[in-house]
């Protein structure tokens, strides 16, 4: 009953926001902004730039709100817009180019039992080059498939796979160094 009530509330807020009701728009913003800034931060290291991208993405959310058909998750819909905005920012502003190497090796990684803090995770992701970072975020965090990522980034599916492989390899080595550091301190 509570879920239905919440859903009804959400649709009502969306309806009001479509009619340029500023209070409704602010409600949507305050409900999702912190989560969405986290999403943007995954792709963009600079928190200020991440916020700028989030704001422009929210503008797109409100201008295209009438296109949302209340079928899927509203959060998922906003999240997709955020991710796309981050990708377009990286591709246009940072001019990220993907090396079209389709040679990738599936390596078996050692199971890592260490629990990382969120800051450590973000540190590891930030250390990745933008190309690897995008594919890794899209595949491992957002859950997109390689063909979807290939379409989103305008690259071959093989390139997406190779980019992920490289990202994983790089992360593995970084994790190993972190491990060593941790062991050293302990």
């Amino acid at each position, binding site marked *: 009953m509570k879920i239905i009530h919440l859903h009804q509330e959400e649709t009502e807020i969306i309806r009001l926001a479509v009619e*340029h009701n*500023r209070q409704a*728009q*602010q409600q949507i*913003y*305050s409900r999702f*902004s*912190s*989560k969405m*800034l*986290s999403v943007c*931060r*995954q792709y963009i290291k600079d*928190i200020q730039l991440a*916020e700028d991208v*989030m*704001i422009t993405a*929210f*503008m797109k959310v*409100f*201008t295209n709100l009438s296109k949302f058909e209340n079928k899927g998750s509203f959060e998922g819909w906003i999240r997709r817009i955020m991710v796309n905005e981050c990708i377009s920012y990286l591709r246009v502003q940072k001019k990220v180019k993907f090396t079209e190497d389709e040679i990738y090796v*599936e390596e078996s*990684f050692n*199971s*890592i*039992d*260490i*629990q*990382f803090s*969120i800051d450590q*995770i*973000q540190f590891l*992701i930030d250390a990745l080059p933008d190309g690897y970072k995008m594919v890794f975020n899209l595949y*491992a*965090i957002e*859950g997109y498939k390689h063909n979807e990522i290939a379409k989103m980034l305008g690259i071959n599916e093989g390139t997406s*796979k190779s980019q*992920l*492989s490289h990202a*994983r390899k790089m*992360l593995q080595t970084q*994790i190993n160094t972190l491990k060593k550091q941790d062991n050293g301190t302990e």
Partner: protein
Amino acid sequence: MEPNNFEKDFRDKLNQRKIEPSNKAWDRLDAMLSIAEENKTPVRLRSLQTSKRKWLYIAASIVGFLLVGTIFLSQKKDTIEIPKENVVLEEILKKDSISKQSLYTIEPDKAEIVTSEKKSNQKPNQEQIIDLHKKSNISIKKEQNQIAGSSIIIKKNQENQTSNNQTSTVETSKNENADQLIHSAEKTVVAENSAKAKKIKVNASDLLNQVDGELELSFREKVITKVNKNYQTVKVAVSNRNQQE
């Protein structure tokens, strides 16, 4: 490529993470939204205004075209009318000049006729005079209105002639029987008067027809001469070119 353990950990932790944006973030978004909304409404208004202006421009241009057209047409009419008036004036002037000329030319003829053929009838004299008039007019080589003018003059002259003839017959009749001569003169006068009346009536319509016909003829002639001139110039030009080649 199954997700590794650390990837699952990454996903869970990242999805739970929340980063509060700065307080200014909403203000910026609010400002952007209000600008976008302001832009939207003026755009609609502007489009409406521009469409209205467009219609105004179209209407104004149509009115302008109509005005220009009417002015142009009226001007054309005026220009056409002016030459007509000029032509009429010219005709009158020509008539006057011809009448004067013909009067001068007629007088010697009359004298000749009076002296040489004292006993002859007036009708042949008149015919001769008319012929002479025509000849004189042709020799002057005036345009369409010559004959019209001459015919008018002939009428006038006919009157003069009758009086002249009368005097001449009176002079000659000194040696002849006065009564017979008077009788004959009366007869001729009556006959001439009747003839005059008839002739004048006939001449009026004839004159108009003649004038009209000659006007047309002259126009045709003009056109023909112009065409001929142009043809000749073209011919010469072509021949010159051929020679040059």
